[in-house]
């Protein structure tokens, strides 16, 4: 932990415990006395919000398991048993299902915040990598969780995603059979997904501890990207950060509650209220919204194997980010050109999300036929997703490495306190 501990055991019991297991000291140093930059804005509250999401998913998930039947025969009916017969089962299940979406909303904001303010740059590379591992685990967990209700979209989504591994040369077929536990998605698949869906959240919790540990070693980044230099730059975590995080969590919970109580099925698919039937394929198989940009990248590439590689490559870019960005300036606040590319990155990601939800050959502008290129009309979602995907990769592989070398940046303040204090002086 950064700095030496200032914890003073007050009671006899605390002194006794501190000599044997300094757990109170650890908590005090991590969440009370821990110095936080004084200029953190609301984008920095999403770390706390994410812990809340994880806790909520774990608690509701553990309760759901008490009533759920992990079998192809019983899963669908047991989920409905939860919705109809279990006391407040509807609340627990809707919290868990919408909680996954909330978790992803928060994690995307958290990641974009890191991207904008350069929170991945030295010495925070390991912190960023651990975050990427958490994100990867979250995606695996969410995907397997969506299979568990054994509705139509659960089943056919599982078929589509597991089949992706079949594109790998030589080992593809063996891997798919191994994932399925047979020759098709069936009861063994559901059972192993259930087992892993219960395991992975605890792995996430473990990596979260490492993530927080790494954070406390290097300290938090802040909107200026300038490291705290003196006591004037920082404030103790409690009460300053706790109360601000608490307020942000409460506001976030309002959004969460709005979905749970008033539009609990808006983020899901109606088809998943039909029990899985291997013989009937839904007209559109669409993943959950948080996977749509990657799904669009997958479909943008005409070759299946290359598509799968592009999709995983899109995530690999995040892992490589600390070494792709060459800029000496951390925060995009002082990088006017990078800021513009960042906004376009945001737009490209959203466009990819929209494309992922559409049929690839549907026209973007209705009733307009242009000319065919690579087997699709230029006015189609597949072409839009190709353009957006190209930008997505170009942002990581060309813009960030090159821009860092050629960009004219704005002057960076000497310390955190100086611009903050001078802004205050202006007001006063």
């Amino acid at each position, binding site marked *: 932990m950064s700095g030496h501990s200032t914890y003073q055991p007050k009671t006899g019991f605390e002194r006794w415990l501190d000599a044997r297991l300094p757990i109170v000291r650890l908590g005090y140093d991590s969440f009370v006395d821990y110095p936080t930059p004084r200029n953190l804005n609301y984008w920095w509250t999403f770390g706390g919000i994410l812990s809340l999401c994880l806790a909520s998913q774990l608690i509701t998930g553990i309760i759901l398991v008490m009533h759920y039947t992990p079998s192809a025969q019983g899963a669908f009916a047991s989920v409905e048993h939860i919705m*109809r017969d279990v006391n407040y089962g509807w609340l627990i299940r*809707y919290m868990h299902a919408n909680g996954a979406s909330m978790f992803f909303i928060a994690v995307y904001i958290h990641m974009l915040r890191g991207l904008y303010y350069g929170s991945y740059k030295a010495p925070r590379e390991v912190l960023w990598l651990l975050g990427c591992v958490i994100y990867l685990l979250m995606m695996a967990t969410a995907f397997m969780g969506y299979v568990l209700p054994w509705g139509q979209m659960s089943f056919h989504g599982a078929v589509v995603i597991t089949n992706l591994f079949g594109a790998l040369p030589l080992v593809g077929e063996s891997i798919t059979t191994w994932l399925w536990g047979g020759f098709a998605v069936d009861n063994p698949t559901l059972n192993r997904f259930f087992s892993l869906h219960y395991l992975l959240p605890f792995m996430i919790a473990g990596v979260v501890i490492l993530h927080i540990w790494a954070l406390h070693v290097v300290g938090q980044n802040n909107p200026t990207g300038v490291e705290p230099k003196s006591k004037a730059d920082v404030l103790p975590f409690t009460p300053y950060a706790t109360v601000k995080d*608490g307020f942000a969590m*409460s506001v976030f919970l309002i959004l969460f509650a709005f979905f749970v109580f*008033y539009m609990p099925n808006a983020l899901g698919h109606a088809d998943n209220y039909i029990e899985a039937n291997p013989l009937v394929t839904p007209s559109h198989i669409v993943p959950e919204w948080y996977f749509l940009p990657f799904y669009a990248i997958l479909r943008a590439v005409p070759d299946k194997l290359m598509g799968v590689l592009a999709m995983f490559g899109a995530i690999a870019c995040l892992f490589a980010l600390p070494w792709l960005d060459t800029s000496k300036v951390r925060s995009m606040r002082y990088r006017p050109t990078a*800021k513009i590319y960042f906004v376009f990155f945001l*737009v490209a990601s*959203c466009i990819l999300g929209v494309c992922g939800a559409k049929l690839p050959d549907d026209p973007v502008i209705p009733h307009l036929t242009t000319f065919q290129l690579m087997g699709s009309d230029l006015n189609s979602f597949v072409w839009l997703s190709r353009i957006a995907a190209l930008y997505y990769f170009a942002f990581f592989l060309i813009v960030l490495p090159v821009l860092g070398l050629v960009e004219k940046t704005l002057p960076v303040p000497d310390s955190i306190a100086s611009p903050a204090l001078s802004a205050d002086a202006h007001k006063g």
Partner: protein
Amino acid sequence: MLRKLSVLAAAVGLLTVGVAGPALANGGAKEAKDVHWSFEGPFGKFDQAQLQRGFKVYREVCSACHSLKLVAFRNLGDKGAPFYNEKYPNSNDNPWVKAIAKDYEIGDIDSETGDAIKRPATGADHFPSPFANEAAARASNGGALPPDMSLLAKAREEGPAHIYSVVTGYKTPPAGLKVPTGGHYNEYFPGDLTSAWSGSHEHVPPGGFIAMAPPLKDGLVTFDDGTKSTLDQEAKDVSAFLMWAAEPKLEERKQTGFAVILYLLLLSGLLFASYKTVWRNESH
């Protein structure tokens, strides 16, 4: 700048949700009719009289082919349900529930002899299905499978409005549309009619072919409360009933939500005040 960025991000986000939503609607069919439901909105509640009428439509018409296997008779007497009565907090004691259940026969095993028997249903039993299995259901319906109705109102993108629109959406097929044997033209049923259409490809009629013949018509059911049983009324009532069957805890959910959000608003206000107080002497 950051504020502008966040506004932009929010706008892009909203746009994504707005555009991505309708993308999932069924292609080809007409958009469902706009119906006003009593259970809409944050304070929406089921109209009990409507649920009772809808149940009668289900029982006398739909149940001939459609199962309702996730619903138990006792559910009819639960809070927010068609036959709820505050005098009977335990729905198994509800006389309407008992009377309705008694009219159904349930397959069981005689505990003395082990023989397969039929006995009258109790509140704990679920609605029996009209067909023994899927094959039997298909055999009796020209190869088509009448879907279970327990979740139908949630299993369609447009909800109960879709059910209402399909039931009232049968039309004489336009000239040039070849309706297959056992099919019925319906503007609101998803499908692609291109191959059955002899006219120009620009003007393929909306909708699809549904195996179910028009199930409801004026005066088919006699409502006990004297409501005129027009096709429109029957369709609306049975759709509302099916929404209840799909989401029986809807009222409880909306009421709880109001309290929860009110609490969170107050909590947020308090926390914001605390934040301002704690930070009052600190620049940031």
